[in-house]
């Protein structure tokens, strides 16, 4: 009886070892053949995007700028590219001082690819009475830096010319 149990135990151990060897060999073969485990798709960092809206509503230029990479670029309409986090902070301090209208942002589409993420969305600036005064669209490129998602490129534009401005003349593409 005891011998049978010992035989059984030995057999189980041998089976387990054989299985481990088999798995190790096949994974090795897989790696050599150019296979890699499929990366698990990460969710878009929506809470970081929400933080942008919260900080913008508080007119917290430093807080908004902290959501951009050190070498981020803003691509605002009718203005030159804003380079780097420090310049971005100045931009938001200038363009969103206390008392300015709030903004509503809607995410339309997100894609996450490794250390980069893409977001397309729409925005509405609201007047003091809560009515939309301007609407537009944006594209952002996010980048994961040291495990933290930050905006790396940010372009936006209005859906219509400003009411006081003359009709658009030759908005050239590239």
């Amino acid at each position, binding site marked *: 009886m005891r011998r049978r149990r010992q035989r059984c135990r030995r057999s189980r151990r041998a089976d387990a070892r054989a299985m481990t060897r088999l798995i190790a060999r096949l994974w090795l073969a897989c790696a050599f053949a150019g*296979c890699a485990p499929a990366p698990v798709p990460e969710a878009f960092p929506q809470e970081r995007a929400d933080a942008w809206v919260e900080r913008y509503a508080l007119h917290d230029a430093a807080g908004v700028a902290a959501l951009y990479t050190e070498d981020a670029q803003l691509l605002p309409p009718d203005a030159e590219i804003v380079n780097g986090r420090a310049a971005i902070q100045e931009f938001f301090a200038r363009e969103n001082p206390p008392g300015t209208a709030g903004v509503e942002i809607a995410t339309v589409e997100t894609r996450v*690819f490794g250390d980069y993420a893409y977001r397309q969305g729409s925005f509405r600036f609201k007047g003091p009475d809560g009515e939309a005064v301007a609407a537009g*669209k944006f*594209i952002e490129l996010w980048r994961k830096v040291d495990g933290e998602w930050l905006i790396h490129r940010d372009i936006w534009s209005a859906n219509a010319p400003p009411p006081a401005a003359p009709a658009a003349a030759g908005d*050239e*593409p*590239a």
Partner: protein
Amino acid sequence: MNRIHLASWTALIVLLAAGCQRAEPPEPFPQAAADGWLAAFNSGDVDGLSLMYSPDSEMLPPDSPIITGHDAIVEYWRNYNPGAVRIEISNAETFPAGEYWLREGSYAAMHPEEGEPRVGKFMELWIRVDKAWMLHRHMWSPNAPPPAEMPALAPG
């Protein structure tokens, strides 16, 4: 033992099929396609431009609602009359993004009757459809409002 072998083989085949993918080397940015867009634009070749946009592409021009879909974009360019304006691209930077490529850069657009080019910046998302790289999202804006006295070259 045979059963264990069979089970382990089956499990591994399933694992390989589900969790293992061929590690493809990243494709370089499709510069030839980007150059093709520029050549088509500068020569006023709307049919050529029409080949450069994915079926469900979107264009996001300044001071305009989003232009959605390949056909609407082609119509936009037909009305725009490319070829009258010549574009040069500079400071382009590309970012690999999974099966996409993202490109950002600056442009200078020389309009007829104007001494100085209008400059601006752009962002593009490229996608591969079958074997061709195409623009999937296309957004740009000028660095200054366009001159009011100039004739409109864009619709709307």
